[in-house]
């Protein structure tokens, strides 16, 4: 069945991010001047306004800052998924992003739950970073 959910369109700023997710890497912009990580991709540093940055591969570890559970489909392609959760993930490096937590049901989600990134290939151009409960360290 054809993929009918919205697909991100990489912008001038976000292209390296989406190129990396295809390779299974989570890249964030890292300011060369103040050291802050930022997301979403942006022309300048939201802390110090520097335009000088590197793309750095980050741990992919973080925690669920908050989450919600959709019981209504705002887009027809999500109707079959109801009820489904969307989470705000806080990465270890600081930035937050919206995503889904896979492998568990919405009722098992909790704030501050540790998670780690996984990548879901949706077509040859785009792989979405999603998250799963972090493996317990032995």
């Amino acid at each position, binding site marked *: 069945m054809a993929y009918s959910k919205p697909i991100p369109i990489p912008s001038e700023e976000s292209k390296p991010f989406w190129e990396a997710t295809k390779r299974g890497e989570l890249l964030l912009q890292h300011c060369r001047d103040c050291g802050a990580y930022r997301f979403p991709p942006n022309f300048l540093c939201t802390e110090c306004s520097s335009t000088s940055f590197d793309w750095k591969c980050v741990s992919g570890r973080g925690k669920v800052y*908050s989450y919600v559970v959709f*019981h209504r489909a*705002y887009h027809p392609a999500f109707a079959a998924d109801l009820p489904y959760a*969307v989470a705000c993930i806080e990465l270890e490096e600081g930035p937050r992003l*919206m*995503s889904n937590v896979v492998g568990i049901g919405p009722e098992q989600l909790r*704030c501050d739950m540790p998670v780690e990134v996984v990548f879901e290939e949706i077509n040859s151009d785009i792989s979405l970073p999603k998250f799963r409960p972090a493996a317990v360290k032995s």
Partner: protein
Amino acid sequence: MTAFLKDKYAIVGIGQSRIGKVPELSDYGLQLTAVKNALDDAGLKKQDIDGLITHSHLLGAVRVHHQRVAERLGINTDFGLSVSSGGATSGLMVQVAIAAIEAGFCTTVLCLHGDKGRTRRPEDVHETAGGNAPEYGMFSATAQHALGATRHMHDYGTTHDQLGAIAVAFRKHASLNPGAQIRDPITLEDYHRSRWVVWPFHLLDCCLVSDGAAALIVTSAERARNLRQPPVYVMGMGRANNSRGWIYGDHMIELAAKESGAKAFRMAGVTPADIDTAQIYDCYTYIVLATLEDYGFCKKGEGGPYVEGGRLELGGSLPTNTSGGMLSEGYVEGMLQIVEAARQLRAQAGPRQVPEAELAIVSGNGGNTVCHSTLILRR
């Protein structure tokens, strides 16, 4: 600082259209109804209006909206401006009106907002829904506000019974308001039984979608004394923006209301204990709870217990959204909050009158918890 503006300006006219389903009127029909009613209320002619500030947010595509209104009303103005700061706009229009009069741009300003939110035809232009992560199924202002509620529940143990108490109180008030869109009283059980939209929000946590418009007229206290209605003085004004976004830092649980409210209280020289009635921007129940915390009616995290036990109901210690609010009276993006505050302070609220109401606080909150405005009004 704005302290020198305290009590120097007043709201002298209020007007609204019918609220709810009004299919027979266009956007401009609703807006002009509100304008005419505000002029009649103030005892002013349209030629007395020399400043016009309008908000056409939901119409989106309408540029220079104030001009479209002025040509339909048939007036020239010295000062005209179309603005948007989301749900903070209503209170900000009053503040910008005062700034414009103080600067000498004009003397009497009409502030207007309203549109056909409910019976708009599909072919009518409408802004597309927001949401910054549709690839993950993240859509709607409801979900963005709901994220804050989830975190508030996690951090402070806030419960659905507490959010429900807000919905129940405002519906009780709407039952006393013949103009309210929905007037059937609800119980906490009804609240719990209403369907989930985006958990943790039930349908009854969410504001209505309405046709409707409202207008306000602002002028100097000096001119206000010769007009038809008792002046409603603008005692305090505040505004602030958590512009780094709703996803950043503590912004989901600590709104720009904190800074905006502090400015308004400082200017007015009063404290939350002095306020007789609150008219709070209630896009969602949770935002009422968070706003009351941020304004200092209780400590951060204590909003849940604070709103229980009928405190926000008529007869309680802080009667809030006495006309039913956007949860039950209708959604005109915060304008009806100012209209109701004025009615209460003029002692014209009929069966829902707060006895001896002297001071009211009004909040506006927009841009998904980012933009905020505060007015403290007195009779």
